[in-house]
């Protein structure tokens, strides 16, 4: 005997589980409850979308180019270390 509904998440709990969900560290049962809640709660679906957007925007902050003057400085550091 089981009740799939008796252990439904409240939205207030769900927002605290969002990171665990994205990290895939929820148990199978918790994950199922989480996902089911999203099918019947537009607000929580939107909240998850917003956390994902926040992460996507953060990703754009990464810059990988090394300014030439910085490269020259660090090359100089390296050469001093080599001879030192």
């Amino acid at each position, binding site marked *: 005997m089981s009740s799939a509904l008796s252990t439904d998440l409240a939205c207030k709990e769900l927002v605290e589980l969002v990171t665990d969900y994205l990290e895939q560290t929820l148990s199978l049962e918790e994950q199922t409850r989480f996902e089911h809640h999203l099918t019947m709660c537009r607000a929580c679906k939107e909240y998850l979308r917003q956390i994902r957007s926040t992460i996507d925007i953060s990703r754009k902050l*990464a810059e990988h*180019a090394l300014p030439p003057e910085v490269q*020259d400085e660090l090359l100089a550091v390296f050469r001093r270390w080599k001879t030192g």
Partner: protein
Amino acid sequence: MVRDSARLQSAASEDVASLEALGTPGSTRKEDRRLVAAIRAGDEGVFICLVKRHHRAMIRLARAYVPPGAADEVAQEAWIGVLKGLHKFEGRSSLKAWIFRILINCARLRGAREARTVPFSSLDEDPQEPAVAEERFLDAGHPRWPGHWLKSPEPWMDERLISEETLSMVARAMDELPRAQCEVMRLRDVEGWTSAEVCEALEISEANQRVLLHRARSKVRQALEPYVSAGGS
């Protein structure tokens, strides 16, 4: 890619190309040892590859400890520390984690000297704050929907999400996070490190890392909300 005026003395160019790929998540210990050996042998190309891979992230992380102007110097100090300590690197941790620990130590020391409040511990400073303000939910006494949304999140507007302004807002919101949360979110979400790599570099547990990441993301979302929501300013 390589400036003419700074000719690199490097081993065969294909070594450089293959080493470009190193330092990515999943780099093995074997690859780390090759890198270290090449640098100790004086290979400039390999060293610059390593620098390119990590330098910007090091500066960003340093900003959690020192004023922005000092971050470049801290990162440079860290590279000096890396070179000086390279002969002691045993490969017990990944090279990346080892480099970033040196960086963090430099940043902490410098931060203490600059008299910026830098608590030593990586533990979180505000353990009780919920991901979303309590008043946004129906209270526990509601007969049908205790804990459900009272004031739902408004959809975010696509055009606002891609703006430069939003990008700077996220950067600023991260800068204002408690230091430990800032570190974790920077490394995970900005730099794309794996959870294992972050735990190794910051010497924290998986669970601790998750909690910090959770609080960081919740706060940054909260900061963004008024600016990117349909109902926002």
